[in-house]
Every structure is written in C-alpha cells, then in structure tokens.
C-alpha cells in the first residue's frame, strides 16, 4: 500500500479521535455491532437445526432461540444508540471540517492566497467531498473497516471450532484440515486477486478523475461564483453577455459529460469482472459446504452456518478491498488537508509593540523593493522614505505605481522582497504579528464588509461599545443614515443569512468601512481611496472632517482626487514603483513634474 497516503489517512483519523473522542468511539462500537449482529442469527439457526435433528426437547430449543433473541436485542439497542450519534455528526461533518480550515485560511500568511497551488489545495479540501467532507468520508471508511474486521473475526469464531473438530475426526483427504485449509486458501486467493486488481483500477480511475475531471470542476466553480450575487447577473444581462456565459457553460457541460462517460465506463467494466469473481466464490462456498455435508463431515446445521459464514467472510474481504482502495484515495486528500493545515508561517516575530499614549510612532522604509508572488516585474523599487508622528501624508501617483503596494507592505500583508521596514526603529518582522496589526486602522480600496449586524461590522466583535460606535458613525458621516435603522446596532446589513438587512449604497458602505477604522482607534490610520464612491457632499465632509476623524494619529491618505493633497503636510508621488517627488502642495505645484501634470489634468475642469 502506498505509504504516504495511508499514513496521512491515519494521521487525520487519529486527529479526529482526539477532537471528537465520543463520536469516534461510537463509530467503532457501532461498526463492531454491525458486523457481529447478523451472525447471531446464523449461529442460532445452525444450532437450532442441529438440535432439531438431534431430537432435543422443545424447551431447550426455545431457550436457545430466546437467548439469541435477547442477544440480538441488546446489540440492536446498542447499535441504534451509537447510530444516532454517528449519523447526527455525519450530517454536518463538512461544516465541522471547514471550521478549522477557515481558521487556517484567516491566519496563514496572506501571500499564500496568491499561490495557485495553495488555492487549489483549499478548493480541493472544501469541495472534493461535498456532502460529508474529507472527515466524513474518513469516518465512513472507518465504519466499513471495523465492520469487516469484526464480521470476519466473529465468523471465524463461529465456524472455527466445528471445522477443527470435524477436521481432526476426518478420515482421508476430503474433510481433513488440509482440505479445508486448501479450500479457504482458494477463496482467500480469489479475494486477494480481486482486491489487488480492483485497487489498481480504482487508483487509475482516481488519477483520471483528478487530472481530467477536477480542472473542469474548477472552471465550473469559477462560473458558478458569478451567480452568487444578483448584481453580477444584472451586469451579464444588460450587456448581452449571456451568450458568452451560455457558450462557456455548454462547452463545459459537454466536456464534463464526455469525461463522465469515460470514467464511469472504466468503473463498470471492472465492476463486472470483479463481481463475477466474487459471486463465484459465494457459489463455491455453498458447493463446498454441500460437499462436506454430503460426506457427512459437517452436520446439517453446521453446513448452513459454514456456508453462510464463508459467504460473509468473502463478502467482507471484498468490501475490505474496496475500503482499502478508498482509503488510499482518501489518503491523497488527507495529505492535501494536512499540508494545508500545517503551512509554515513567516510571521514569526515575537516582540511586543510598545504601547504609547502619545501615538508617537515613526515609520521608515530602507531600500525596500517588492515583487508580487508569481510576477516578473517589481511593483516597488528601492523605496526610501521616513515619516513621523502625527503627520498627515498623501500618496499619489498613476495606477499601478506602487501606492497600494507600499501600504500592503507597511501593514505586513506581504513581506518586502528586499530592504527593511522599521517602525520605531525596529524591523517590523521582529514584532508579534497580531500586536503589529493592532497599530493600523485601514480602509482598503477593495474593502469588504461582512454580512453581519452593523454593530458587529463596526467593532469586529460580538460586543460593541455603544458610545464608541455612535461616535465612529458620527465622525464617518453615517449618523443620520444610522438613525433610520430600526434595530439600531443590531440591524443586519446586506442580504446575508440574517434575512433582509439594510441595503447600503456604495457610498454608505465606504462610510461604514471608515467608521470601522475609526472605532478601532489605532495609532496609524490608512485610507486608500476613501472617497472614490462618495458624492461631492460626503467627499467634502471627509476632507473637512479629516482632522476630526483622524485626530493626532499618523495618517496616510491615498487618492486620485488630488484635492485631498491640500490638507496633507507631506505628499509622496509615485511612478512606476519608484518615489519620484516629495513635498507639500505648493512646492510640487511649483516644479515641473508628474504632480503638476496630474493636478492640471484635474483642475482644468474646475476653472
């Protein structure tokens, strides 16, 4: 058996035992019972037939039957109890699995998201086993495994003694132990043949699935996500893009149907072959048992028990083969799961950040260069800049000039490819990551507001300090709109699962994001295109109230609206990943350069 995959499989299984000991124990007990219970009937039947043949009294037979019934009863109760727990947990195994996965997604190094391999790991883990998840499949596999083993063990216990006895008492070859042994070996051989070739075919099938079907699924997924928001549907509709969408979906469907046929075809062919071998072994068991009965080696009752038991053992052997094949395949995904959950982190700093009441923080970039992962070009080149406490700084430049990149490096979403960034003189890589993040209140250009209640959105926690939240809303210019909300801070936003929430316009969402940043009360405030979606009045409010909003904190303001530069003391101009100009507005407007060009491009319309 392939080592790595099996080891991964069992590692994950062991993990599950640690996390949900009760449920996993229930699984084991349940499958033990499942394996053994059917055999009670076989055993009792065999004994009853023998007893009847031997002419035993009715009472003893009845006692026998009742004993069997009681045993089966007890097992059934136990089984049902366990089943209840197991099935209940299985129902939402996928959700249970995805909790820790989500946690990992949120804590791992940010740049991992851009890594296509890691993204595909995530997609596979979360979508390969849609109903029960990887963990559910493993649980299911365990069920089969234990059931088969327990059944085989129980069956051997039932037939073993009888065979041994008659084997010893037999004369001649037929009916002797070697003969029985040979027969069992034959059956075993058929099982092993089946198991091995089946596993080979299954492996081929699984690989085919991964190589040919999964990419198509991923492409489908990309198209499917378009429909997750009604807004995107509207866009498609009014721009006549349906043709493109339908064309792509048609193509995908066809390709998928083709692959499906191939895949299932492989399966059916091998299935028939193995089915025949398996059924043959069943028929042989009966014939062999019959032979022994014919020769008088086994009593009538034992013939029945023997035939039944061997049949079930063979069945289990085949199921076991199936289970092991599935284990190997599941192990492949278990490997991916383990890899994803144990991704190494580069955010290993441990220094606590100085807590300062006076918000005296200084930032410096020393020869910092940066390339996005997977990109050939430098997004930032040899950046050298210092700025200090309480300063309002604007960063301007053309699209793609490195403005947002600088912020992402400063907030340590990415680590610089070259150079050092220092805060208060210390390399930021040395700081503890969570503490470092606490320094910043940011409104990114592509910020996201989660579909929760407005209080939760602002405070990013279950509890919201009411005064603090109201103040933040006030300063962000959202107070009036907030007053309209019927449930106050409990009002849900968006169309999430709280049902109908308040629908906010683009501008209102931007203000809410600002409120969130204000609430955090972090010493360094960064606003990336904060007025892009705001109307003139709201934009004016932000410009006017910027001081009020930001207070004495260090603030960095990125915008295309050069008007914002008028109230910043320091302006950095970027072009092509480099810092090309620095100064205040009067200086930069006075000299020839990119700044003046951009300024005039905007100002001329207001002349």
């Amino acid at each position, binding site marked *: 058996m392939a080592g790595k995959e099996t080891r991964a499989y069992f590692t994950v299984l062991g993990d599950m035992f640690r996390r949900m000991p009760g449920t996993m124990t229930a699984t084991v007990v349940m499958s033990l019972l499942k394996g053994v219970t059917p055999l009670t009937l076989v055993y009792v039947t065999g004994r009853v*037939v023998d007893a*009847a043949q031997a002419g035993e009294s009715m009472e003893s*037979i009845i006692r026998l*039957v009742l004993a069997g019934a009681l045993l*089966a009863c007890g097992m059934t109760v136990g*089984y049902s109890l366990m089943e209840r727990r197991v099935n*209940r947990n299985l129902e*939402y195994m996928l*959700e249970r699995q*995805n909790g820790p996965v989500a*946690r990992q*997604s949120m804590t791992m190094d*940010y740049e991992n*998201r851009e890594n*296509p391999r890691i*993204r595909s790991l995530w997609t596979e883990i979360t979508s390969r086993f*849609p109903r029960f998840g990887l963990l559910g499949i493993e649980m299911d596999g365990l069920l089969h495994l234990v059931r088969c083993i327990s059944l085989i063990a129980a069956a051997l216990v039932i037939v073993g003694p009888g065979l041994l006895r008659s084997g010893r008492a037999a004369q001649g070859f037929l009916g002797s132990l070697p003969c029985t042994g040979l027969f069992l070996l034959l059956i075993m051989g058929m099982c092993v043949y089946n198991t091995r070739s089946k596993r080979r075919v299954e492996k081929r099938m699984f690989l085919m699935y991964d190589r040919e079907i999964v990419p198509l699924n991923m492409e*489908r997924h990309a198209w499917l996500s378009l*429909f997750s928001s009604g807004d995107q549907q*509207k866009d498609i509709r009014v721009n006549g*893009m349906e*043709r*493109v969408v339908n064309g792509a*979906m048609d193509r995908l469907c066809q390709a998928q149907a083709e692959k499906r046929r191939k895949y*299932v075809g492989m*399966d059916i062919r091998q*299935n028939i072959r193995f*089915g*025949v071998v398996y*059924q*043959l072994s069943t*028929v042989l068991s*009966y014939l062999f048992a*019959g032979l022994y009965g014919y020769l008088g080696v086994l009593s*009538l009752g034992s013939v029945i028990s023997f035939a039944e038991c061997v049949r079930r053992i063979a069945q289990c052997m085949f199921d076991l083969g199936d289970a092991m094949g599935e284990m190997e395949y599941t192990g492949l995904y278990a490997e991916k799961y383990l890899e994803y959950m144990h991704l190494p982190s580069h955010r290993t700093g441990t220094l606590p950040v100085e807590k300062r009441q006076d918000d005296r923080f200084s930032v410096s970039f020393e020869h910092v260069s940066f390339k996005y992962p997977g990109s050939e070009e430098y997004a930032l080149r040899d950046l050298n800049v210092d700025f200090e406490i309480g300063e309002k700084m604007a960063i301007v430049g053309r*699209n793609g000039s490195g403005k947002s990149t600088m912020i*992402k490096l400063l907030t340590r*979403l990415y680590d610089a490819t070259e150079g050092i960034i220092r805060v208060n003189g210390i390399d930021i890589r040395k700081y503890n990551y969570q503490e470092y993040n*606490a320094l910043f209140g940011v409104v*990114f250009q592509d910020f996201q507001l989660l579909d*929760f209640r407005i209080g*939760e959105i602002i405070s*990013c*926690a*279950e509890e919201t300090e009411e005064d603090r939240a109201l103040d933040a809303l006030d300063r962000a210019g959202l107070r009036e709109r907030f007053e309209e909300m019927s449930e106050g801070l409990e009002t849900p936003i968006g169309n*999430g*699962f709280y049902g109908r929430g308040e629908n906010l*316009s683009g*501008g209102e969402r931007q203000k809410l994001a600002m409120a*969130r940043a204000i609430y955090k009360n972090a010493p360094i405030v960064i606003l990336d295109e904060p007025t*892009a979606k705001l109307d*003139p*009045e709201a934009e004016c409010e932000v*410009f006017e109230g910027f001081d009020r909003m930001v207070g004495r904190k260090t603030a960095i303001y990125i915008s295309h609206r*050069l008007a*914002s530069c008028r109230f910043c003391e320091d302006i950095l101009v970027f072009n092509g990943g480099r810092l090309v100009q620095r100064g205040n507005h009067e200086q930069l407007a006075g000299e020839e350069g990119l700044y003046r060009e*951009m300024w005039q*491009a*905007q100002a001329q319309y*207001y002349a």
Partner: protein
Amino acid sequence: MNETHRIVAEKAKRKRPLWAVVAFFLREIRRFDRLLFLCMFLIPLPEMLSGYLSARLPSDLVRMLEQRLSASATFLPLALEGLALMLCVVAKNTGLEYMKRMRYFLPDYLTDRFLRQVQRMDSEQVDAPENKEMMSNAWGSAEHGRGFFEGTMITSILGTILSCLVFGWAIGRRSLAVLLIVTLSVVVNLYLLQVARRMHKKYYGTISQYAKGEAYITHTAMDPAAGMDIRIFGMLDFLIRKYDQYLAEIDQNYRKIHTWYFLRNLSGAFFGLLRDAGAYLYLVLLMSRGDMSVAEFIFLFGAMGQMAASLETAIRLAMDWNALEGSAVYFQEFLERESAWRQESILSTAELEALRRGLIVELRNVSYRYPETEKTAISHVNLTLRPGEKLALIGLNGAGKTTLVKLIAGLISPTEGEILISGHPRSDFTREEYTSLLSVMFQDSLLLPTDLDSNLTAGAERQPEKLRRALFLAGAEARYDTLPAGGKTRMDKTVHPDAIDFSGGEKQRFLFARAIYREAPLTILDEPTAALDPLAEYEMYQHFGEAMAKRSVLFISHRLSSTRFCDRILLMEQGRIQEEGTHQELLERGGRYAQLFEMQRRYYQEEKEKAERVRFMED
C-alpha cells in the same frame, strides 16, 4: 409587470401532489442520463430474483442432503442455481454501481439547470423577497443533490414490491400465520415513519440557513479582499466564534431530528425482533412436530428475512421521499417561474433597426418603491432622453440614481408611470430585444472568466478594426498590446495559472472598451472613471465625444468635472429631479448644483481665490 409576478408567485405556492413531484423528478433524471433512468427501472427484477435465489440456494442444498440423492443429482442443479444467482447478483450490482457513480454527478447537472433558469428569470423575480426561501432551498438541493440522491433509489421500491409479492406468496402458501406476523410488524413501522417524516420537514429549512452561513464564512475566509480586512481588524476570533455558534445551532437541530430517527429505528428494530423470534419459534414448533422439513424451514425463514428486509428498505426509501419531496418541490417551483417579459417578438426588423440607429427614452411620471421596504426610491420623475444626447445624472448617494438606471435598463419595473422607448412600452419588446439596445457599465461590472476578446465583443465574432478603435478610445490599447497572449488572455487565475489579474483601473478601461464596441443606442455609464488616475481620466474624457458619438448616454458621476461635456445635467435629490439644465445655466441659477460644484472646485483654486470663495460660501 408587478401584477404578473404576483400571480405567478401565487400559483407556485399551491401544494403539490406527490405523484407530480415524482414525475418531475423522473423527468429530470431522464434528461440527465438515459441509462441511469433505465437502470432505475431495470434493477428491481434482478434484485428480486437474487433475493429469491439466495433464499432458495441454502434451502435446496439442505433438501438435497436430506434426500440423500446422488452426487450429480445434488450438485448439478445446485451449480446451475448458483450460476443463475451469480448472474442476477452481478446484473443487480452493476446496475447499482452505475447508479451510484452517476448520482455523484447529479449536482453538476442540477446546478446547471438552476443557473440556466436564473438567467431566464427576471431580475425582479430573483430579488423578490418571497422567492428567497424557494431559491435558497432549490440551490441547496442543486448544489448537494439533496433529495435527488435519495430519489434515485426510489425504484428500489419497485423491487421490494416484487419481492414482497413473490415471498408473500411463497410464505403464505405454507403458513399464513407467519405472513401475518411479517405484515403486522411492517404496518407498525409505517406509522412510526410518518412521525419521523414530519420532524424532518420541520427542521430542514432552519438547518440549511445555518449551513449557508457556514459556507459564507468558509468562503470569506479565503477571499483575498476580505482576507486583508480580517487580518488588520483582527476578526479571526469573532468569525470563528460565529462559526462555532452556527455549528452549535445546526447540532441542536440535528439532535432533534435524530432523536426521532433513533426512536423510530429502535421501535422498528424491536418489532422486527419480536417478529423474527415469534416466527422463528412458530416454525421451530412446526419443524419439531415434523410438519415441516429442515429445508422448508430454512427457506421460509430466509424468505421471511428477505421480505422483512425488503420492506425495511422500502420504509427507509419512503422516508427519503421526504427529502426528495422537500427539495424537489422547491426545485420544481423554481424551474416553473416564467419571465414576465413577452416571449414572442412583435417588432419588425425594420423597426428594431430604426431603434438601433437612435432612440428616445421617455419616463412619464415614473415612481418606484422597493418591495421589501416601503420607502419610495423615485417619485414622479419625468425625463426625455433624445437620440445622441449626453445626459449627466448627479445626486447624493441615496438620491435614486441607481434606481433610475435599473428602471431604464429594464431590470425593475415602475410601480407607477411608464417608460417608453421611442413610443414603445416595455411590453412591446422581448427581453433580448430590449437589452440589445442597451449597454451598461455598472460600478461593479466584471470581466468573465474566459478570454479577453470574448469579454470585449460579448461573444460575437471579433471585428479587428472595430475592436482596435474601441480599445484606443477607451485608453486600453497600450495594455492590450503588452499582453503576451493578446486577446486570448484569460481572466481567472484559479482556473488558468497564466491568467492575468488586472488592476481596477485596467478593468475599468476594458469595460469601457466593451461598452464602446457594443455600439448600443443607449449607453449608461455609472462612475466609469472611479478607479482611474487623473491622467487616465483626462484621456478618457478627451475621447469621450468620439467614443459615444451618435449614442444617447446617461452618465453618472460624482466628479462634477466630467459633467461639463454633457449636453444636459439632471440633479436628483430624494427621488425627484430638482434641477435640470446645462452646466452654465445651473451655475448661474446658483442652486444645489452650483453649491456642489463649488464644494469640489475650491480645492483646486489658488489661496487668494480660495479665501474669496470661502467667504462667499459662508454668506
């Protein structure tokens, strides 16, 4: 239009008979895969036969041994019987295996059906609050095949009916008492089944809501944009706690459901045992009195077991009908939603051609109220947009601009008043005809995960000159030329590793190029330069006239600098048009527009002028 929607919605709410649900389900399976459909009906026979033969084989074996026949007379018929059994079982298992594999692909088919239907439906229907539950359940069952998986096993019921008939006859022929015992135990089981059914239905909806919440968190956790905010704002613990909270809720609900299942299973098992023990004892009695041979005993007991097992299966399957009914009903309802637009064209080609050359958009006393809130978004708006006219729409957030755009784009219909295109009401158009007259660039428009050219030409045949011109006028030519794969560049990195991730500004320029290429007589641009830097914005304005020549344009922007090259400006406030005129006219009027313009302008002034203006504003 709203009236139609209401009627259509009511029709769907009527309860459906079970047979209609099953018929629908079978039709869908047949569409998905013919062979699967066939398997569903062909399997019952070999299933029944294998059951019968597996009861006969051990019984015949014992009989032959008892009768002490010759070897050939014993083993030959047994071997034949064994072979027959083998063939039946292989046939059955192959069929079942095929079904199992194909079932796995059902979600692909179902989600496809779902998405095509979403496309067919009107925007209004998709957003309507009364459709929300239906759609989310339909989606739930499409995505996970819930209900449909279970449904494919329905035809096993046919097999069990066959088995019951055969075994019933075999048993009843010999001993009516045993038959009665078996039947009785099944009746009791059926009753318990009913109870379990009710419970499942009750909790299903709640669970799917929470599951959806979990899925939302899982996906948001991996979303690149959300990821930044999650880290900076330390939302990790909060989200994880929420997740755990939902998990707990799901657990609670499942606990209730499974308690009922447990009670049902337990009672069923007890009755089963009672039945087995009772019948067993009865048969043993007969056997010991010599009224029954061992072989018969084996067979009858086996038959009884088979029959009981078949019935058990039938009961479990019937329980799954629950899931099927629950899911399929929503799905069926969903698929039956019809678009409220006209289906057949009444406009001639000539008329449409004329419209494409130029059209007049008229809004007569249009009002709109969103269905969920009672808030009026637009009131009594009167507006005429002439062919080739460039109209700027200004207003604060929430003034109603987006609503107006949606109304003109045909995505929603007015609650009062009407919208006419060159005198034609909306009901004169099919949806395709109407949208062919439009091109809209929303704030959150997107590029589809296919190649760039398809995005730009909307899947139509690529006309190189036209495309080049569109790219040039949109300021996207330079970027287009630097792409190594040119127009074949793909958009989605998750699917194609060498896809390109365009920046916001680049995307906006390509989207503008798309709008130019489309050459629709009515173009709506909502903040088309929001992501552009000052120089790129300037470039776009420079080419705007040429790009939008001869077209009617509705231009929405917060940057009042851009309104200067529009023919007319409309200022909206609180759902009404407050001011209308050219830029000069409105400045001279000194109203709201002038005020807003001044707000933006003053930052671009010199200090001296600024001081003067500030004094002016304060007066």
